[in-house]
């Protein structure tokens, strides 16, 4: 499509420190794409390179096939929404929204039309004459989006714009952002460390760690089929059981852990003898009754450390042999949640299809790089 954005082997070095290691990603026009990662993973550096505030040390950023290198942020068809919004406090709401058009020399009458249309888009009709400090947090948010969209950018970049809002408003703004993106058809590139935000809004998510993209995929792919131990551990809750692969066949593998031999899916094709980590989601682990038939399920028995009731779910924490992090079992509060007492030994079970074998974190960055 016409306005696809491509990052090709993009590298950014600050002195001896490499913030971004050869990132490759292509975003078709109209996609809601998120970069998800902990602070310092390089996602903000990528954002500032796309917006033009810094140039890549190597590689290219292309929009509709055109290399953007050397084009300053004021000449790029991208617009950035800052973490603190950076609205101009000395200007009215209308002047803020119309600012990009004013500096482009658009006539006042034309500008007013665009501003009115934008105010309607963000459901703040009639707010044009208000001062910025008269607005609520959510309204400021919407004005910042309108100000960026008024210049009709091909790509809208958002730098954790929801982080300053309280929880309820944040969840509401997720829906609003997503709806706005669908209505305008503009490519949204969203930067966040909040996996809930990334998974809820995005068409695709790139999970980043230490300047590298660990995995790119839809929310379900990222959550259900993590490709690396980092993604498995960073996105959502996951139980990790470390061990050594003892057998591998037909897409499954066996791993010898402190709890004995367990079976799991083996999508990365790990071979016997390799160090590995078995991941299984807490909601996929179930309590096993003492004498019940377990079939081909993996079974673990361990003392209960604690039970935590959280309303819709209850978590049972079991001691994890050889690790500080307990094994968590998440049970839906369906009215029949069993009682557990501290210190009591409980058996839990999970299907090999719900568990996954991955190389330990850090081992993934071999000479081969990434798929």
């Amino acid at each position, binding site marked *: 499509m016409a306005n696809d954005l491509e990052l090709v082997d993009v590298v950014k070095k600050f002195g001896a420190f490499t913030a971004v290691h050869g990132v490759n990603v292509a975003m078709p026009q109209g996609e809601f794409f998120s970069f998800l990662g902990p602070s310092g993973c390089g996602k903000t550096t990528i954002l500032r390179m796309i*917006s*033009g*505030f810094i140039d890549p040390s190597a590689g290219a950023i292309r929009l509709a096939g055109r290399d953007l290198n050397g084009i300053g*942020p004021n000449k790029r068809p991208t617009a950035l929404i800052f973490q603190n919004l*950076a609205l101009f406090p000395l200007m009215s709401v209308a002047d803020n929204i119309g*600012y990009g058009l004013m*500096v*482009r020399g658009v006539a006042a009458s034309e500008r007013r039309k665009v501003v009115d249309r934008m105010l309607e888009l963000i459901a703040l009709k009639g707010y044009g004459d208000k001062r910025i400090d008269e607005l609520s947090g959510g309204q400021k948010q919407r004005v910042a989006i309108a*100000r960026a969209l008024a210049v009709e950018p091909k790509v809208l970049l958002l730098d954790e714009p929801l982080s300053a809002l309280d929880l309820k408003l944040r969840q509401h703004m997720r829906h609003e952002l997503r709806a706005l993106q669908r209505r305008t058809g503009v490519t949204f590139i969203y930067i966040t460390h909040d996996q809930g935000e990334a998974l809820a809004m995005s068409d695709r998510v790139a999970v980043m760690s230490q300047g590298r993209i660990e995995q790119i995929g839809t929310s379900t792919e990222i959550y259900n089929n993590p490709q690396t131990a980092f993604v498995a551990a960073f996105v959502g809750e996951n139980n990790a059981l470390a061990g050594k692969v003892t057998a591998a066949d037909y897409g499954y593998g066996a791993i010898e852990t402190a709890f004995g031999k367990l079976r799991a899916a083996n999508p990365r094709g790990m071979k016997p003898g390799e160090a590995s980590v078995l991941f299984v989601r807490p909601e996929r682990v179930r309590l096993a009754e003492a004498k019940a038939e377990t079939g081909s399920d993996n079974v673990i028995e361990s003392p209960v450390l604690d039970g935590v009731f959280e309303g819709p779910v209850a978590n049972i924490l079991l001691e994890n042999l050889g690790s500080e992090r307990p094994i968590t079992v998440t049970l839906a509060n369906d009215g029949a949640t069993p009682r557990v007492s501290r210190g009591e030994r409980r058996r839990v079970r999970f299907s090999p299809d719900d568990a996954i074998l991955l190389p330990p974190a850090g081992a993934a960055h071999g000479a081969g790089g990434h798929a």
Partner: protein
Amino acid sequence: MSEAIRRFGAGGVAAILAGVAFWAIMLIAGPMLLMVDLAFRPYLPNPADVGGPLDVHTVSNFAKVFLDDLNWRVFVKTIYASITVTIISLLIGYPLSYILVRSTKSGWVGILMIGLLIPFWVNEILRTFAWQLLLARYGFINTTLTAMGLIDEPIQFTNTDFGVQVGLIYAYILFMIFPLYSTMESLDPNQVDAARDLGAPFWRIHWDIVIPHTKPGIASGCIVTFMLAAGSYVVPELLGGTRAIWFTKLIYLQFEAINWNLASAYGFTLVVLCLLFILLMMAVFRVSLKDIAR
């Protein structure tokens, strides 16, 4: 207030307030009011007449000040020269402050600040003498320019209004830079980046974002620099000599002639006219007192 009473006791608070009141009333307001009173009384050479029937309130001193054509010429020159000094200080100070603010992150700001401050550890008179050496007929600047073959004859810098203005800019530019720096520092750098991202070229970012934000600092820097330049005595005395006369020199000449009454009238006139001028400028540039106090 209650916090202060708890810490220092009622007596302690009373003592502090009394000290401040004494300082403000007796040492600042008192002498000023005395000067105003003196300005409105005739000069009586015979001390016995002071407080007698001849010592009445009159505007005769002011009549002398206003009716003398020379006074007006010197006053207008002083104001005009002070305006140029203020404008040039602003033109130098604004980019300098912006560079200082933008280099805060790099760690250079400390060194730059010290570089600005060290010359001001030296007494103002000594600094002005240094400029006399630079600007003199056979001083550093003239000999350098002659040696480079740029000029044949030395340029007359000292004893000219130009020389005085150079000295004044140097003497008072920090009073311009500091208010500019402190207001600019409070500007969120993201505002500058946001304007740039929306397509604003360099000059528009300054015109639309940085200057409006810095307006209170510009106003207070300009007022202080203007008042100091218009009220400076040492710099015009040393660099202007007998040819470039400042209004302060006229005030001094009356004190020297022991006519304190006329001297007070000159001084009072300068203060009031400068204040009126500043209020006029504030109205023209739409700056309110609230902006300056911000």
